[in-house]
């Protein structure tokens, strides 16, 4: 252990001094021009003490003095993973589904609200996953399509009185059209250039929503449109004289079921797409665009399709979002949201459906849990991202070929 310490203490010390150098201008220079050192040192000392503990644990692990603890743990882990492998996947899926179904029965409004948020972001993340994870195009303006979907429902309902269920496909369609309009001129670009163009487009949509007073009511937003409603059969007058009764979905747990259904539809679609001929074409474009063109893949059409499909799911999520909030304003569709969705995809693991679930859950639930530390949220985000890229560059649950592809089944 002494050996290890000798090797790394210099780097560690330099790192800590560097943190001190960074911290002092942030905490020590006050707006009135005075300088102080006390606060910086206290904060720095806390950081130092915390990291030192980790440093020692790391050193002990490196030199093997933690073997008495790590060996049994890794053995238990192995045993556990062997056990989980013997249970077929559908059991887990069914279990998850049942848990999701009974979730609102045991939780309050707040927890349901958080769950709805998570599921909306799962839909968004899965949609973005097509563009980023499968087709390999960096899209920084993805939230624009979410906005298009949200405003589609709000406006269609306001002006034409169309119900949520009728608007849902329309919202998806409008978002898809928006995707094609942006995609058509921009998808000739590759890599970084595409990212910048999509970033610009995201801003354009937000600014249009903000400034087109006549249509969108500008920064004041739109409110006063309907919630989703459902028709329930009414058997009061006997079975054969059944009537339909209209019910507004006012209760939060009913909305939860709507978004759950939406998320499940999205998951099934994405899963089917992922393991289809189209999915393979997308992946080939991600891997090597020229080569896939040489193999007869019409790269332009497939890239456009990826973009449009991503937009479609965002549009549906957007329609639900506005139906739940019953208020939309351009505030909700800033670049920060795009970055957030992208974070979920990257954090969870590109191209992996359970990964995106975990990513969305982590990025929505953790800030809720740590509400007191709201001020440091962005700092923590940055820190977590850096640590992630160091230790799990492929995401929390890296995409592996879940299930078998059709051709593997034949063999």
């Amino acid at each position, binding site marked *: 252990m002494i050996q290890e310490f000798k090797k790394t203490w210099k780097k560690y010390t330099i790192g800590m001094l560097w943190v001190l150098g960074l911290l002092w201008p942030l905490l020590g220079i006050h707006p009135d021009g005075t300088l102080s050192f006390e606060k910086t040192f206290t904060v720095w000392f806390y950081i130092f003490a915390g990291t030192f503990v980790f440093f020692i644990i790391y050193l002990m692990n490196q030199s093997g003095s933690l073997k008495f603890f790590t060996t049994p743990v890794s053995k238990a882990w192995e045993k556990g993973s062997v056990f989980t492998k013997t249970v077929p996947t559908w059991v887990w899926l069914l279990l998850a589904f049942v848990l999701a179904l009974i979730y609102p029965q045991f939780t309050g409004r707040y927890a349901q609200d958080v769950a709805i948020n998570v599921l909306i972001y799962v839909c968004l993340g899965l949609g973005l996953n097509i563009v980023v994870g499968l087709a390999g195009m960096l899209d920084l303006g993805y939230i624009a399509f979410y906005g298009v979907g949200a405003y589609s429902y709000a406006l269609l309902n306001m002006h034409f009185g169309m119900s949520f269920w009728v608007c849902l496909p329309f919202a998806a369609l409008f978002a898809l059209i928006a995707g094609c309009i942006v995609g058509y001129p921009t998808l000739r670009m590759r890599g970084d250039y595409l990212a910048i163009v999509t970033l610009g487009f995201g801003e354009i949509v937000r600014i249009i929503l903000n400034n087109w007073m006549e249509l969108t009511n500008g920064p004041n937003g739109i409110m006063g449109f309907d919630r989703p409603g459902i028709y329930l059969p009414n058997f009061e007058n006997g079975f054969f004289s059944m009537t339909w009764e209209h019910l507004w979905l006012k209760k939060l747990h009913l909305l939860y079921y709507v978004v759950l259904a939406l998320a499940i539809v999205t998951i099934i679609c994405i899963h089917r797409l992922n393991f289809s*001929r189209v999915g*393979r074409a997308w992946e*080939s474009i991600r*891997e*090597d665009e020229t*080569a*896939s063109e040489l*193999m*007869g*893949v019409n790269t332009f059409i497939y890239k456009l399709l990826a973009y449009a499909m991503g937009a479609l799911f965002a549009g549906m999520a957007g329609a639900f979002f506005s139906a739940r909030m019953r208020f939309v304003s351009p505030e909700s569709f800033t670049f920060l949201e795009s970055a957030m969705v992208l974070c979920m995809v990257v954090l969870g693991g590109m191209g992996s459906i359970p990964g995106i679930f975990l990513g969305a859950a982590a990025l929505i639930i953790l800030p809720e849990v740590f509400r007191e530390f709201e001020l440091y949220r962005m700092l923590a985000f940055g820190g977590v991202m850096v640590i992630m890229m160091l230790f799990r560059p492929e995401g929390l649950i890296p995409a592996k070929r879940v299930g078998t592809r059709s051709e593997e089944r034949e063999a």
Partner: protein
Amino acid sequence: MVTEPILELNNVHAGYGKINALKGISLKIYPGEIVAIIGANGAGKSTTLMTISGIVEIQQGEVKYDGQLINKVAAEKLPTMGLCQVPEGRRIFPRLTIMENLRLGAFYRKDTDQIQKDMEYAYSLFPILGERKKQHGGTLSGGEQQMLAIARALMTKPKLLLLDEPSLGLAPIIVQQIFDIIKKINKEDNVTILLVEQNANLALQAADRGYVIETGEITMEDEADKLIENPKIREAYLGE
């Protein structure tokens, strides 16, 4: 020869931006042949193939395939017409399995049964691919990747196969193996082959005819045997 050429280039000019890589290339390939294009670095060998495949735009001249002008045909349409390229540096899809790589070769085809048979045939040509069909392409060695690239191109059922530097970065024994396979494909499957190589000796031994390309122009054209004998070629490309 009385037969029509399967591929004909007439005075083709092409390049990248303002740089002219090709300054009037003309060549003819007849069905059933193996033709080699040899030349130094930067002579325009790969650009010629990329121009035929429609990746690099033609500025002037014409490319005819099977009697049809293909100047403006999109790159992704060519495999359906039986013209396929194995690009330089292999360019397989590293994070897809070998099977998926082959599947992508058969991307435009809908005949599932025949695809399956062709895949079996590819595995019989390259047994190593059959053994590793569920591995990711990126985990293969260079030679195996080259084999995969050729197998992938064969899945398009080509009539004319363009091969760009199949020997690039491979051990001599593997190179020999790959050239044997190329000859086999040519003889048994009746695939016409246009080969671009820096390794002139190897290419000319395998080929029926050869073209020599220098700074974007064809400087010599002959039977492969005669090119090997040619003292100029021996000096410039065979290192004597």
